[in-house]
């Protein structure tokens, strides 16, 4: 009488491993979920704001040229900004479209999943932005497609419309 189950020996030997690039493939397929990247509290976030404001000022001066006749109407697009920050008390959106000034755009939230959201109509072009959490923490949108160093060791998210 032999009670040994031959399947116990053979079936485990059929096990195969995932291909080496499997985790990368999964990563590429994950849906974009806005992620909060918290900067150290000790670092002030003012420098990038000042740099951005200066850049906008220079750009504004540069663009003060004689009016061009019959300029085409720029197109615009509604953009949804989203940040997961369930513990936050307040989230603001700060960017080139606010002249890097705070207090203009506050996100609604958090919802049941901890997300803060706001929808904006932005003109075509290139916009830089970041999130300001609880008035003092600068949060980068790390899942934005493009980023740019602001010269102070941080990254601003870039949105191309």
């Amino acid at each position, binding site marked *: 009488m032999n009670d040994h189950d031959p399947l116990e020996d053979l079936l485990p030997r059929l096990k195969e491993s995932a291909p080496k690039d*499997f*985790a990368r493939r999964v990563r590429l397929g994950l*849906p974009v979920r806005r992620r909060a990247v918290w900067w150290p509290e000790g670092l002030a976030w003012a420098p990038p704001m000042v740099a951005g404001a200066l850049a906008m000022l220079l750009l504004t001066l540069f663009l003060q040229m004689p009016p061009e006749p019959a300029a085409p109407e720029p197109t615009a697009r509604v953009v949804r900004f989203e940040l997961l920050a369930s513990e936050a008390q307040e989230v603001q959106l700060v960017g080139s479209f606010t002249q890097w000034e705070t207090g203009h755009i506050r996100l609604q939230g958090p919802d049941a999943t901890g997300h803060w959201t706001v929808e904006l109509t932005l003109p075509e072009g290139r916009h830089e932005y970041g999130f300001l959490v609880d008035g003092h923490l600068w949060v980068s949108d790390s899942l934005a497609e493009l980023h740019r160093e602001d010269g102070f060791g941080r990254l601003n998210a870039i949105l191309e419309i």
Partner: protein
Amino acid sequence: MNDEPDEKEWIQRSLEGDPSAFSCLVLRYQDVAVNLARRITGSRTDGEDVAQEAFIRAYRKLHQFDPVREFRAWLLGITANLAKNHIRRRTRREDREQVDPLLQEEQHDRDPRLAALTDAMEALSASERAILTLKYMEGYSVNDIATILKIRQSAVKMRLARAREHLLNHPLFQEENSYERS
């Protein structure tokens, strides 16, 4: 297994939107998920696609995951369900002839019984293949398998017995039994 603190942290960070934390979960469980999906679909590439979809589904539904449960079992349940749905769609498309073989040549050469076993498993239902894989390759009990596949324990036992009977009736095992008896 889900008691490991790093896994709970990975899940929490994934819920907070950190894909790198979810990648840690992928690296830990990719082998079991891919293997189960390959076994159920009977195809290497289909199995990989199904397992990939299972991880993405798990990421999307992570807020529904009950931390009391084992993440591995929860993931395998998603994988098995997607694999069975995949087979139904594939059957409708009648493209089974395009299915790539599971075993590689070197495995056939090493032990011809593995090739025979693989062939014999193809005749089983998707559910039976899932049950065999979860029991013999992943070591789950009948109770665990019933939970993972969301079927009754009696159904697991019945299908397991039927699958074992089918495999052990293969000429390969019949020959071995006759040797043992003689």
